[in-house]
């Protein structure tokens, strides 16, 4: 079992002929993801890598291939429209890897997708991988192993670091979800916690947060109310200075709200085992499983 992406994922790559899109399309195909179509306006009728049909529109791609999931690698200025297009075409899940989508655009994309029942992961996220089944996005496949840990994270490379720690010490994953660090995102911690709680294969959950906002605090409350599985958590940014933007649009603290200390306290209160450093993930899991 796995969440959001699995062997049934039939993937469209939006921007498949671009620099990033073509690179990652190949990576996903090598990993075994069922890439059924690509979309690049004006390149309809071509084939990517001699196999994957390219269409002018997502609607055409869905009609011809029955795709259910889309991953977006188009440049930032086209990303919102790519999300609208995928939702209008009836996509069940959209993973938007593209970084740099304006926040005000996202305030409109979110309700648009919600009205159409489309799930979004991202934007500005590494995507999702269910080891051995399907990879949608950019999480390196070779660091993952099949297993029973669910991983959800706002970060990119920090997630890889923690997945790496897990895999090399024998803790494989059901799914790893990088939800992205932007201030406004589709799927959030709570959505992933709910999915992992419902997934019978997942035995424990690792949640990786950051300074800024209150998503981790809300997630902690959710864990208290709804999650029976062990949860191990990490918060990056304990040493970050207040009021400064730390690379991610998301990692910014204003005043006393959204600090690492506050979030770690919320984790602790919810019974989430708090890592002091990434290397703590395995010992803490071992204590709890």
């Amino acid at each position, binding site marked *: 079992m796995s969440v959001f992406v699995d062997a049934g994922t039939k993937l469209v790559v939006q921007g498949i002929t671009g620099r990033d899109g073509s690179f990652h399309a190949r990576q996903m195909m090598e990993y075994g993801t069922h890439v059924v179509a690509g979309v690049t306006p004006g390149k309809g009728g071509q084939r990517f890598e001699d196999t994957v049909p390219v269409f002018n529109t997502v609607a055409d791609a869905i009609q011809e291939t029955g795709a259910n999931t889309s991953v977006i690698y188009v440049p930032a200025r086209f990303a919102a429209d790519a999300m609208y297009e995928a939702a209008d075409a009836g996509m069940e899940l959209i993973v938007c890897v593209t970084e740099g989508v304006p926040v005000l655009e996202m305030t409109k994309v979110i309700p648009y997708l919600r009205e159409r029942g489309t799930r979004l992961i991202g934007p500005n996220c590494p995507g999702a991988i269910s080891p051995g089944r399907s990879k949608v996005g950019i999480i390196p496949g070779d660091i993952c192993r099949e297993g029973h840990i669910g991983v959800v994270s706002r970060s990119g*490379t920090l997630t890889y670091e923690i997945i790496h720690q897990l895999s090399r010490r024998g803790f494989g994953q059901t799914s790893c979800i990088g939800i992205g660090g932007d201030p406004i995102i589709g799927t959030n911690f709570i959505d992933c916690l709910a999915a992992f709680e419902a997934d019978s294969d997942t035995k424990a959950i690792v949640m990786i947060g950051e300074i800024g906002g209150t998503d981790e605090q809300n997630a902690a409350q959710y864990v208290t109310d709804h999650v029976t599985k062990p949860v191990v958590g990490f918060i990056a940014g304990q040493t970050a200075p207040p009021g400064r933007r730390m690379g991610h649009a998301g990692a910014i603290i204003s005043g006393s709200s959204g600090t690492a200390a506050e979030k770690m306290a919320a984790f602790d209160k919810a019974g989430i085992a708090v890592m002091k450093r990434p290397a703590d993930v395995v010992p803490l899991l071992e204590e709890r499983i």
Partner: protein
Amino acid sequence: MNLHEYQARALLKEAGIPVPDGDVASTPDEVERIARAIGTGVVVKAQVHTGGRGKAGGVKLAADPGEARAVAEQILGMTIKSLTVEKVLVAPAVDIASESYVGIIVDRESQRPVLMVSPEGGVDIEEVAATTPEKIFKSTIDPRFGLLAHQATAAAFRLYPDIKQVRQAAVILQQLYAAFIDAGASLAEINPLITDDTGNVVALDAKIAVDDNELDRKPDIADLRDVSAEAASEVAAREAGLSFIQLEGNVACCVNGAGLAMATMDLVKFYGGDPANFLDIGGSSNPDKVVTALEIISADSNVKSILFNIFGGITRCDDVANGIVTATKQLAFDLPIVIRLTGTNEELAVEILEGAGFSALTDMDEAVQKAVQLAQEAA
């Protein structure tokens, strides 16, 4: 990106909001000339990207052009929270009958813009929010519809008892929302929004922060960037596509990814060290970026050791290794470098580094401990 007060005022004025006249100046001569044109008493305000200008002596009243010149001489060139004042705003001194706060931010929780107003203006609004939250009235904006007239009116009723002022303020709030959207802002506020001695509602001070992601499609706003108001190292980093923040410690960190960069800084602290900076070289793996990164880091005299922590994914470890080798040749500095690399093309990177006389680690904790130790030894 933060706009200066004088830039934010100009955007509000364009949106139709009543703002007192005034102009920006960078010399006492200009200040005197502007004050003379205004003809009444003026206020001279330091234009720096930080709060607390008033307390720091960066805002002063002047009764006549001569006095304006005199206060400008004091303010121009002064340092406020490590920022040098290069420009001042000169505006007429206004008789204030009441001061309110109005602002629009993007709210992460509701995933929408939120209008906030408070009759307690002219003060630190975060203080009001913390101590008397009932004095702040919030209204969530549906961005598909904008700030509706009835929402603006309901908010304005929280500020004024007089219907004439309510109507004026409601229009100003809708204009503020338009300015917020047009600028691609993440924050737009007027503090204080005042009523003057004739009972009219006027914007006295303005603050706008722009979402950096908007700058590509808003060249007019991007042109407002004032690099003279930023630390030179941060300007250089941004121009190279790096995300960099100067800190006080002595262990320089060079990492790919913001989350991993913060976790690395935290780990430096965990092992008793003190990070000298936040630096995210981003997802691409251009060796030139690494060169620029090392250039910026090594210019900081506090730095005693340099720590690379690279988890290769899209970023290729060999590219980073090449960057390190090139930079150390070009820059000829003698700071100790600790390198941790894992992931894509790790073996190739180790080969490159060892060929140039560096050793490479694969464990993050080990690398951080070593960098902290080297810094402590050098200090």
